[in-house]
């Protein structure tokens, strides 16, 4: 990887410092019992959703490949990790590793043939694969069939969640800022021009797809070991839509946007629990309103606190042709 990013040492230290402070603060709040269970659960949801949104954003936002099968990879990760921890009784780290590997492998197997497709055809193909994963899981008795697996030990703790989010962000942001990242973005901007410039577009598309899938697998592992039960139905195409909503709401191609949107959506969902009757109507109206008045998402394609990202790219789905 070329070293093109100018890391200012001071800034780096400050950033790490902020992370440490956040981590310790929350850890303190949890161990001192100041953060009640409700907040803890929502915090876990937020972290998991951040990982999902940021990783899908790599595929949809930065690479410009519309994928609607993210929940499928999450399912692969969830099941792989639970097989390791619950069935084989191996430590959580093995489960996480298995989840990442299995999901990345699934991403590779699915990505290589389908990424030749474009636009909406790719979307439907990935959606199809996501559903196939679900149907297959539903038919495997070893993992509980439609009932899924119940009674998974709670291994996802705040340190795991925090570390996973940080690793996801660091890996994906660095990937985007590397020469690989520029190749990936060039695919989105203009696939033909990129190809003409000697970029092996298939390779970079598959790379982004595999990395995205891998982190979805990680999110799946964290999910399974926090929420006690997994079943195929949890990972249906509507779940993929939920993740896509976060990405688009945050702004395609904005990692900070994806993070913010993941937090927004999770908190919004939780807040609407108390309005059972109109909950989904409100959610839908907010979704439509945001899209009408801010179609580029909350952040557009800018990053919070990083000007350099600014002006580069135009909108991506608008100018196909």
């Amino acid at each position, binding site marked *: 990887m070329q070293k093109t990013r100018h890391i200012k040492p001071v800034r780096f230290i400050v950033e790490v410092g902020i992370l440490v402070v956040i981590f310790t603060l929350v850890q303190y709040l949890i161990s001192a019992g100041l953060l009640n269970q409700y907040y803890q659960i929502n915090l876990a949801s937020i972290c998991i959703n951040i990982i999902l949104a940021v990783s899908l954003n790599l595929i*949809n936002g930065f690479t410009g490949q519309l994928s609607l099968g993210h929940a499928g990879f999450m399912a692969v990760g969830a099941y792989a990790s639970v097989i390791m921890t619950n069935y084989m009784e191996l430590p959580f780290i093995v489960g996480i590793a298995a989840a990442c590997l299995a999901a990345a492998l699934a991403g590779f197997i699915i990505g290589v*043939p389908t990424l030749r*497709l474009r636009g909406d*055809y790719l979307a439907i193909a990935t959606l199809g694969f996501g559903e196939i994963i679900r149907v297959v899981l539903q*038919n495997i008795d070893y993992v509980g069939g439609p009932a899924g697996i119940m009674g998974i030990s709670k291994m996802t703790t705040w340190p795991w969640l925090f570390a996973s989010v940080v690793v996801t962000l660091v890996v994906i942001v660095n990937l985007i800022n590397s020469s690989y990242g520029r190749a990936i973005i060039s695919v989105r901007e203009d696939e033909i021009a990129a190809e003409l410039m000697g970029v092996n577009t298939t390779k970079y598309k598959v790379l982004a797809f595999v990395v995205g899938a891998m982190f979805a697998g990680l999110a799946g592992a964290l999910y399974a070991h926090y929420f006690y039960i997994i079943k195929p139905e949890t990972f249906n195409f*509507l779940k993929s839509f939920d993740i896509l909503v976060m990405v688009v709401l945050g702004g395609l191609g904005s990692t900070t946007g994806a993070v913010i949107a993941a937090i927004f959506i999770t908190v919004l969902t939780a807040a609407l629990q108390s309005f059972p009757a109109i*909950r989904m109507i409100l959610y839908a109206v907010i979704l439509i309103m945001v899209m009408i008045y801010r179609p580029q998402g909350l952040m557009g394609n800018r990053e919070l606190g990083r000007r350099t990202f600014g002006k580069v790219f135009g909108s*991506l789905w608008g100018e196909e042709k």
Partner: protein
Amino acid sequence: MQEFLQQMVNGLSLGAIYALIALGYTMVYGIIMLINFAHGDIMMVGAYIGFFAVAVLGTNIFVAMALAMVTCAVLGVVIEKVAYKPLRNSTRIAALITAIGVSLFLEYTTIFFLTPNQRVYPAEAFPVTNYHVMGLTLSSKDIFVFVSAVVLMIILQYIIKRTKTGKAMRAVSLDKEAAMLMGINVDKTISITFAIGSALAAAAGVMMGIYYNSINPLMGIIPGLKAFVAAVLGGIGIVPGAMVGGFVMGILETLVSGYGSSLYRDAVAFGVLIIILLIKPTGLFGKNTGEKV
């Protein structure tokens, strides 16, 4: 052999319903490149309007269907004006999310007003008689669904191929700017497309109500998805493609349940779709336009 023929009969009427829904998907896509995920829910609204027409107003089934089609045509136009039109010049993925929003809105507004419980089409709405032809069981429902779907498709073909409106629709879907320069009212044409597509969905909704008797606010999700698959299968944006795609989907599903395992039916449907896309990336009827730079 007899079983096979019976399965084909089953598949054809299922396919007719898919085809009707797929047509709306494909028309909307052809004209504004939007995957209208709310389309299945418009079908659901159609089914409900048909239900109220039959059960409350006591109309006969054809009046109910006409009423549902008209109301949904209006609904489709309103949705287009309110939710999609402001997004016509922004990214397509934003429009897609809006469509998901509209879909949720329709589902849950219906749940809010009419509860999530299913409703039952009154049996007298459509008296069923079974015909036995050469050992096959044909019900009047099968015939009704198949015939009215085919009639609607013929009317649609006529509109698209033989009328001025149809010509305008084709022109807009080919090149919006050029059409505008030619003096075609693009907004109006898009509205008409939504109206026709939604009306077809409403007809499909009423058919589902008659065919399966029960309707519920979430009934649109799965057929909507399958019809979308059917549309892509045929080549999205291509009207005959959607018809063929719908029938292929219906027959395929029936055959998989009939001869394979019904548990894998959905997986096989998607599997075939993916294989077809890999061989012919633009669907069965899709033209390979090549890349425009």
